[in-house]
């Protein structure tokens, strides 16, 4: 149902060869690793042998070593590089096998590969490298993923649902922790397993609670990995994902709290209250630290206009510093990272160049992707390593309790939350939220650094839970989503109408709130926006860009995207995008409501001359009585005589038009509707970014050229003549080549095509303040 069949046949054969090749390569890499480690062992011996002759240099002269092996010096980076290479090759391999990656989520495959690799390594070496040390995990592997998530966090849905998310993150996690911890303690006391070599009842309540707090947290890495593939609707995605990010604070506090209690041995009421306070400190402190670094980064980026190359570096460094600083004070590093990314993004993006923006985006994606792959592989490897303590009672009860706790927690919280929400969460939503509570590597790492005497059994249980959630829940969530017909992500492009109406609604709702005298969240949001605009943007954004409103930025982005798309789609003359941003439709209107002064409809774009005429003719023919009157007005450039008069001199007209066009081009007046906004970052990005593909030089007459006109046609390059006539290909711009007969009376269909074409194209009405009107004055002779 959800797998698409790979095309069989030659391409299938080719692909399977590629798969085989890739697998072979991967295996070679693996063997390399093992071989080299063996070589390392050998070489270390030979090195010592080498050392000895040196001391007896004067006695015996050794021949110059041409080829030697010195593995120790590079062993660590070598192995790291090898692991990363392996991870990337695996990722590559999975995507070459679409059937597999459709059924099994990537995370499962990676864990399996990790298991495999771990097994191989264990057999080959008989000692397993301590691969997933918690330091590597927390300091190197986790930050890129979180930064990627935080930087690209969709702010609007996140903030709109912040209440729900916080409820789930804080209250839900607390509930999970205490429920699981408490009940597992009860189970341990009750259970009397003769086969188990450890007496479960020795596990105290505090270790159980500690254990509960470790496995109660939903893991962002796992959630990201699985949810990315199921394309669920935005609301559910942000709910589960937001919860997984924000519950880090709770996890950190609980973990440290219970650890402290375990060490000190007793709990007092004061300690509990202090714990509560520390939770607030951890959460808010993390956010503040992140925001602080975010503002620093934004401020720094204001001055980077001369050193564009290192702009991405600032983003990464400040974010990493935010994370580390938070970790220093035992604050929540994840929340700090999220806050940093979210705070700095709007300002940094307004300041940096387009290329830096792309760089940041791709680096983040790359690092986070590699990190995620590595984490899962290491998870598999670490499973193989070390003795596990299989206690069936403990394990099964843990799994069951986790599930039950999650379900009860979600259902109970939703019941309360729905009282305050406008868009209620349905049962389907609740199910997905509950089912999407995956545990992952964070839980494992936290378990890894436990100092408890029952570490082994806890670790086994944690691994079991992780495997269960990732494999069972991860694999089945996709078919379940299909089965339950949960709303999927809306893949449609955001249209400009929707954007306009989003803004419109914002203002409308704020206004209504003001009228009702009700200080709702629109009111405060508006206040915040105004404050932002007035003060903060001026400080943090360089130059004039601080004034660019969101709508305009969105619009320019859209334009640019369309233009690039158009070029990339083979440069065909088919314009299927919002091309006519460069032209306005105002003079189409006079068909019905003919304005008393016919001036608005007079302006004709040079390249529309011929087509425009055709259209005008059609209009004229249908409104006969207005013809004479119209003629005077359409007189501007081209129609000097009544077009109904046959026997017109084609050549004269052609020549005249050509002359006008040349004149127009020389003038380069701002006849298109949008002047370049001063320093608009999006548009300046467009210019800088254009790899001169967007601007096609005009070739010979018969070479079809495309005109791409971004909304700011300042550079003369942006205007080209279209030489190709296109018929019946949807909305196109056409300027017939001069080889075509100028005024053959086009048939109705032709005219209609032109009409279709030009229905949405027009030239801008004359701006009343615009001086350009002078140029189109009838009296002015066209200079030759």
């Amino acid at each position, binding site marked *: 149902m959800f797998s698409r069949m790979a095309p069989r046949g030659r391409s299938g054969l080719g692909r399977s060869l590629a798969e085989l090749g890739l697998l072979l390569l991967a295996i070679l890499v693996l063997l390399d690793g093992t071989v080299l480690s063996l070589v390392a062992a050998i070489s270390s011996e030979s090195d010592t042998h080498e050392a000895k002759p040196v001391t007896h240099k004067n006695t015996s002269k050794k021949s110059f070593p041409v080829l030697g092996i010195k593995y120790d010096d590079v062993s660590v980076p070598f192995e790291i590089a090898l692991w990363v290479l392996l991870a990337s090759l695996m990722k590559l391999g999975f995507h070459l096998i679409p059937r597999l990656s459709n059924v099994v989520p990537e995370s499962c495959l990676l864990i399996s590969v990790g298991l495999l690799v771990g097994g191989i390594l264990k057999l080959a070496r008989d000692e397993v490298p301590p691969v997933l040390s918690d330091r590597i995990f927390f300091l190197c592997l986790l930050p890129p993923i979180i930064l990627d998530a935080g930087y690209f966090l969709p702010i609007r849905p996140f903030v709109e649902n912040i209440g729900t998310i916080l409820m789930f993150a804080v209250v839900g996690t607390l509930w999970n922790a205490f429920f699981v911890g408490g009940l597992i303690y009860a189970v341990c006391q009750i259970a009397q397993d003769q086969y188990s070599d450890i007496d479960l009842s020795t596990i105290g309540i505090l270790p159980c609670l500690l254990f509960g707090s470790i496995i109660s947290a939903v893991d962002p890495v796992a959630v990201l990995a699985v949810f990315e593939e199921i394309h669920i609707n935005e609301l559910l995605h942000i709910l589960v994902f937001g919860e997984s990010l924000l519950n880090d604070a709770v996890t950190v506090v609980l973990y440290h709290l219970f650890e402290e209690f375990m060490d000190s041995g007793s709990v007092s009421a004061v300690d509990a209250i202090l714990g509560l306070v520390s939770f607030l400190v951890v959460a808010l402190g993390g956010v503040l630290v992140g925001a602080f670094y975010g503002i620093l980064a934004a401020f720094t980026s204001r001055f980077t206009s001369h050193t564009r190359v290192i702009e991405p570096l600032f983003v990464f460094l400040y974010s990493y510093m935010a994370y580390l600083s938070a970790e220093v004070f035992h604050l929540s590093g994840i929340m700090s990272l999220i806050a940093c990314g979210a705070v700095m993004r709007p300002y940094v993006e307004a300041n940096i160049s387009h290329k830096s923006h792309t760089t940041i985006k791709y680096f983040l994606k790359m690092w986070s992707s590699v990190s995620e792959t590595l984490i899962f592989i290491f998870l598999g490897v670490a499973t193989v390593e070390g003795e596990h303590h299989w206690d069936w009672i403990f394990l099964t009860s843990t799994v069951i309790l986790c599930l039950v706790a999650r379900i009860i927690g979600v259902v109970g919280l939703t019941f309360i939350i*729905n*009282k305050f929400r*406008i*868009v*209620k969460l349905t049962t389907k939503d609740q199910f997905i939220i509950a089912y999407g509570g995956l545990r992952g590597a964070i839980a494992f790492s936290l378990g890894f650094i436990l100092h408890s005497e029952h570490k082994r059994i806890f670790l086994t249980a944690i691994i079991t839970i992780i495997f269960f959630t990732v494999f069972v829940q991860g694999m089945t969530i996709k078919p379940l989503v299909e089965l339950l017909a949960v709303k999927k992500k*809306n893949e449609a492009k955001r*249209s*400009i*109408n*929707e954007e*306009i*109406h989003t803004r*419109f*609604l914002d*203002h*409308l*709702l*704020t*206004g*209504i*709130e*003001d*009228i*009702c*005298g*009700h200080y*709702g969240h*629109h*009111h405060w949001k*508006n206040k915040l926006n105004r404050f932002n605009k007035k003060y903060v943007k001026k400080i943090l954004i360089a130059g004039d860009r601080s*004034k*660019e*409103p969101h*709508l*305009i930025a969105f*619009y320019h982005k*859209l*334009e640019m995207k369309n233009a690039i798309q158009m070029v990339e789609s083979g440069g065909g003359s088919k314009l299927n995008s*919002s*091309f*006519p*941003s*460069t032209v*306005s439709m105002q003079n189409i*209107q006079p*068909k*019905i409501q003919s304005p008393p002064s016919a001036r608005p409809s007079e302006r004709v774009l040079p390249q529309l001359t011929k087509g425009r005429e055709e259209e005008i003719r059609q209009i004229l023919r249908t409104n006969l009585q207005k013809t004479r009157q119209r003629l005077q007005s359409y007189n501007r450039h081209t129609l000097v005589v009544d077009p109904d008069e046959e026997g017109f001199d084609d050549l004269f007209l052609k020549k005249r038009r050509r002359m006008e066009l040349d004149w127009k081009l020389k003038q380069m007046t701002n006849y298109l*509707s*949008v*002047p370049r*906004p*001063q320093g608009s970052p999006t548009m300046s990005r467009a210019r800088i970014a254009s790899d001169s593909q967007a601007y096609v030089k005009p070739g010979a007459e018969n070479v079809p050229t495309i005109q791409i006109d971004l*909304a700011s046609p300042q550079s003369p390059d942006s205007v080209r003549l279209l030489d190709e006539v296109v018929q019946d290909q949807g*909305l196109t711009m056409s300027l017939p080549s001069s080889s075509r007969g100028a005024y053959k009376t086009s048939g109705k269909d032709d005219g209609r095509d032109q*009409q*279709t074409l030009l*229905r*949405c194209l027009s030239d*801008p009405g004359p*701006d009343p303040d615009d001086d350009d009107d002078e140029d189109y004055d009838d009296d002015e002779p066209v200079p030759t």
Partner: protein
Amino acid sequence: MGALTSTPAPIEHADLSEKTGFSHRQIMVLHKRFKHLSDGDDVLRREDFLGIPSLKYNPIRKEIIEAFFNRRNFSPSRQGRANEIGFEEFLVVLSYFRPPCSKMTDEQRKNIRREKLKFIFNMHDADGDGLITLEDYKHVVEELLSRSGALGKETSRAIADAAMFEVARTVGHTDRDEFYEGITFEHFLKLLSNFDIESRMNIRFLKSNMIPGCTVG
């Protein structure tokens, strides 16, 4: 200022509650607000709205105020504009912003959607002829960008153009002649078909646990 008129009798409240779907408590609160805005009068005029301080930062305040006086919003059949409105009309206009009930049939949801979109359509359609022309739309965009100075005027033209172009694409090239005049309500519906207005266009009238009754009509 004189004595304030007494609050409407509970019977009227019940009527209004039925018609607009607000709860009694909400109606009482809104009635107090109405009195406050109208300075104790029985009717509201346009000038009364101008007295609201925070409204003056709003770029589309004119349209919002107009919407309260637009008879088409009171009931679908009426036309034209009023110069003063009573409490009932005030409530009717505000009822467009009621949050939807949790359980709605698809039919009800579609109706609510239609109503809310019709409200917005009426706001755009300044002259009330049932069509949004390019001028109207351009005006809307200009207002939205009016805080950005001269920058807005030219760009807003381009943005309005792009928006109209999208309309053409969405609607298809079938209704050629209609497009000349402007966007009809049906086009508008189609245009915003992806826009979940029924969950966005809502105000919480009271922070109470009174969920407004599900009177959809």
